[in-house]
């Protein structure tokens, strides 16, 4: 017999997003379980011994473990049930609503945890050398920046004595500094793109201050060495990222550290039938992280890769509180009886909650429900106009980024929830001359914000009051104008 315990809300992942979500759900009155596969809470913050965390949230510069500690103390005092070294083997939807996690742990063996709502705070993983198609040999000494960080900061091991770093993402920059401080010679940081990928402050504090050269439009093409890395070949690339013939040079080193991107971890979301946004690689959500599947909320880096942990915590809070409301109240207006029933019918599996009498779908209702699910999960399903209409039927408003944006999260708003809504966006190119961003509903401009500069590595935050959105709005449009284009 497999043991089972039920909660209102189960949060999966004990990093900054999950910690904040668990606390917020608990504060909203829910019984909360927090599932963490490692032996300690804190997620990746555990190994981030550098400072710079918490400036937005706490107004001070904290080290990663300090930032995590503030939340961990609160979680431990809150009555949230923390399940450490617990791995979610599978998640299934229950007949009648709710979810069951099949868990594995050393202490508990195999057990089940049930909940009315789930918060997925599963974070992200690093892109590897093979995913950026580095070739040559396969010696020891090629590692992602996060792995290098773990070896140095947690295990007390030096991955090499002369390192080359590929990728100017934040972890790569931080590791350039960290390795330098440990006496490793950092030969240089190489970046495929013509602009650095990390935060401006990290470029200054981790490279400039340490005299480490940054080589833009240059990449590592091959690794050499049998047992351990002996050298790498670097080469300049053109604007399309293609190697410029004749620019190859061999650099002696014993270690290659890669900071070439992060990918949201959404295996559980996928196993629940959610589809992912092609740009963010996370599920599409509303302002509370509510996904297309009622009762499943997503936050933090699982949603999109954030630049600051402070924003991760913020999204965790929103998702946790909303999950608690969902679990305690049951589905809201947007996820009414027909809606829930038709989610099951749409192929995600599992029928509606029996306590709500299942309405017999009218003719065409199923097709409309499918369109709605598709619209919330993937806008492309039935064309933009139909998708927007389907969303509007659910009381959802699509948020459409215009040209110049990489993405905006959340992808839609649920107006029935009321209150403020927070957006994050990234520009898709550096704008040095200044820009204006407007958010409007039809002719009504809801928000105008001016920026001295915009850079893709830096996330920008917007907040609006949903009460200001006119009734009947089907779509909000986010527009970007470079300085000087204001009157176009």
């Amino acid at each position, binding site marked *: 017999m497999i043991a089972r315990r039920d909660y209102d809300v189960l949060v999966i992942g004990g990093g900054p997003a999950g910690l904040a979500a668990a606390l917020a759900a608990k504060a909203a009155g829910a019984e909360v379980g927090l599932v963490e*596969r490692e032996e300690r809470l804190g997620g990746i913050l555990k190994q981030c011994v550098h400072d710079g965390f918490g400036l937005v949230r706490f107004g001070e510069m904290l080290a990663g473990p300090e930032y995590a500690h503030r939340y961990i103390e609160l979680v431990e005092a809150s009555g949230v049930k923390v399940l450490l*070294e617990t791995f979610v083997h599978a998640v299934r939807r229950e007949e009648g609503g709710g979810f069951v996690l099949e868990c594995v742990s050393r202490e508990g063996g*195999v057990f089940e945890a049930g909940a009315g709502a789930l918060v997925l705070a599963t974070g992200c993983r690093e892109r590897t050398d093979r*995913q950026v198609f580095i070739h040559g040999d396969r010696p020891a000494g090629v590692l992602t920046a996060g792995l290098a960080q773990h*070896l140095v900061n947690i295990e007390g091991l030096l991955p090499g004595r002369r390192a080359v770093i590929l990728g100017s993402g934040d972890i790569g920059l931080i590791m350039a500094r960290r390795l330098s401080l440990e006496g490793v010679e950092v030969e240089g940081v190489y970046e495929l793109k013509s602009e650095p990928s990390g935060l401006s402050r990290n470029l200054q504090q981790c490279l400039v201050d340490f005299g480490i050269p940054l080589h833009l439009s240059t990449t590592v093409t091959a690794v050499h060495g049998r*047992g*351990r890395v002996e050298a790498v070949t670097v080469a300049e690339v053109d604007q399309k990222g293609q190697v410029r013939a004749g620019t190859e040079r061999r650099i002696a080193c014993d270690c290659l550290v890669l900071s070439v991107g992060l990918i949201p971890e959404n295996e559980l979301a996928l196993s629940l039938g959610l589809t992912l946004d092609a740009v963010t690689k996370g599920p599409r959500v509303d302002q509370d992280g509510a996904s297309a599947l009622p009762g499943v909320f997503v936050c933090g880096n699982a949603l999109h890769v954030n630049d600051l942990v402070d924003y991760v915590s913020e999204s965790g809070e929103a998702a946790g509180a909303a999950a608690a409301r969902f679990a305690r109240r049951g589905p809201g207006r947007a996820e009414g009886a027909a809606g829930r029933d038709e989610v099951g019918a749409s192929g995600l599996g599992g029928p509606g909650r029996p306590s709500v009498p299942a309405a017999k779908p009218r003719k065409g209702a199923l097709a409309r429900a499918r369109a709605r699910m598709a619209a919330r999960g993937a806008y492309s399903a039935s064309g933009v106009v139909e998708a927007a209409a389907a969303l509007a039927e659910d009381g959802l408003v699509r948020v459409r980024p215009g040209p110049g944006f990489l993405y905006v999260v959340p992808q839609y708003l649920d107006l029935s929830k009321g209150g403020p809504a927070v957006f994050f966006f990234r520009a898709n190119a550096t704008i040095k001359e200044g820009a204006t961003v407007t958010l409007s509903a039809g002719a009504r401009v809801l928000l105008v914000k001016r920026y001295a500069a915009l850079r893709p590595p830096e996330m920008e935050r917007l907040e609006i009051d949903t009460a200001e959105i006119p009734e009947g709005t089907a779509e909000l449009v986010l527009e970007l104008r470079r300085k000087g284009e204001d009157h176009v």
Partner: protein
Amino acid sequence: LSLEKLRAAIRARCGDEAAAREDRGSLVLEGRVATWAMRTELGFLAAREGFRGVVNDLVAADAEWAAREAPGPEASAAGGGSLEGLAFDMVVIGGGVIGCAIARELSKWRVSVLLLEKEEDVAFHASSRNDGMIHDGFAAKPGSLKAKYNVLGNRLWEPLARELGIDFERPGALVLFANAASKALYPAFAARAAMNGVDGWEYWSPRRVRAEEPNVAAGQHGAFFLPSAGIVSPYRATVALAESAIANGVRVELSTCATGMALDKDRITRVMTTKGSVRAALVVNAAGNWADTVAAWADDRFFSLHQRRGTDMILDPRAGALQNHIMSMPSVTQAKSKTKGGGLVRTVEGNILVGPTAAELPGREAYATDPGELRELEKHLRLNRALSSSMAITYFAGVRACTWEEDFIIERSTRVRNLVHAAGIQSPGLASAPAIAAEIARLSVEALSETRKVAPNASFIARREAPPELRRLPLEERARAIAANPSYGRIVCRCEEISEGEIRDAMSSPLPARSLDAVKRRARPGMGRCHGGFCTPRVMEIIADELGSPLVAVTKKGEGSEMAVAETKTAERGGRP
């Protein structure tokens, strides 16, 4: 006459720099040529002249280093003398799937067997660098040893896998027709399959193909279906064969390189190794890409090997749900090439493997990949509309050990009485392995019986107790296993869901893993989409604990591949005060 013809051809291409002569029935090519490609061209040319074998000793000016390659470690890395003076009935050189399968077959006899493997683990080279396909035998040239042993091996794998406790599946292979005209090839295909003795074939209409493979590319015009095509994990199979051999009394010496032989007239008396010299009543040459070197030690180098590199790409296990069979679409030009052309192969773990490519390149252990090969793999990806290269987890290269005749050598030496060759075992070598091993064991026992009586091993245990794979157990059973051994409950590798206990099992098996790669071959941590980004430190900790060594000594793949160079707090400070 044919020798004169060949000499003329050589002169026309390279003047007097290169020459050909006959030596004891083999054709020897000597001298210098400008390029590796020319060396290759002449090798194939020579193979057409009907000699027993081609010994290609041409040195290519653009790859002179290739002529100096040696199997052994540097002299300074030689091991101690732990094997010095020991005597064995059978010494098997090489711990790939062939050597390990042979060792296990030999353990069915009352003979003492030593298997020598120069690397820190078995399946280090070609046996862990292939697509795991158990070919049906259709592609092999009719009448070749490849055709014969492939079909026999294909039949033997299923019961063998059951004995070894490893996965074996028969998804079947679809050879897709590229155009309406190629459909007319069906009778010729069927005739070839019949000639090779392949176990079954069918014509599938385009509609049938679509029904069975909904994601198949639109350009298919039906398929030749081969239901007997199977898959195994090649490295797990090799480890399992070695473990079963060990359980039946075989001694496996890892990190032990054979370096030469002592002969007394027409008999090998000793095999020199980096751990001392051993007496050998019979020697089996299963040395993969070094089999011609081993043959030379016994003055029996009647053939030589050339290397054909192949690159495969592995897709995320999610891709596995998008395809049901092995699929390929040979091009017309493919018919003339030396290989089967590659395709999309399912793996027993649920990934899709794309490849392999084929390129004649120097380097017996040259596994560097290059971008051009990956671009070549794109053509296979297009066979399945649901797949894309963004699903790639990794890619790797392997090197096929090919004779110039492009067939296996499975025979007793004609010059040395106590030497048996399993050489030139390239694809479909994995598929053929059980049949090759049975034949080599038969030949070996026959040879040994000339000097002493050899009896069957009545206590041979065919069944290997495979360690549990927790993620695949029913939940109740899994719960019981964790209750008995809590380390099965601690998940170390999140992508592949591998527990600490399974890693410890891999390190306490009959052939214990001692490095990250060896653990990975057995238990799979780090095989998933994060590629070890998260679990590597955890696995290192368990390895260090099991070996009783400091964390800093943990290696990726044996000595010289340490994961770290020093501990931070004791490290030199790069010249800082």
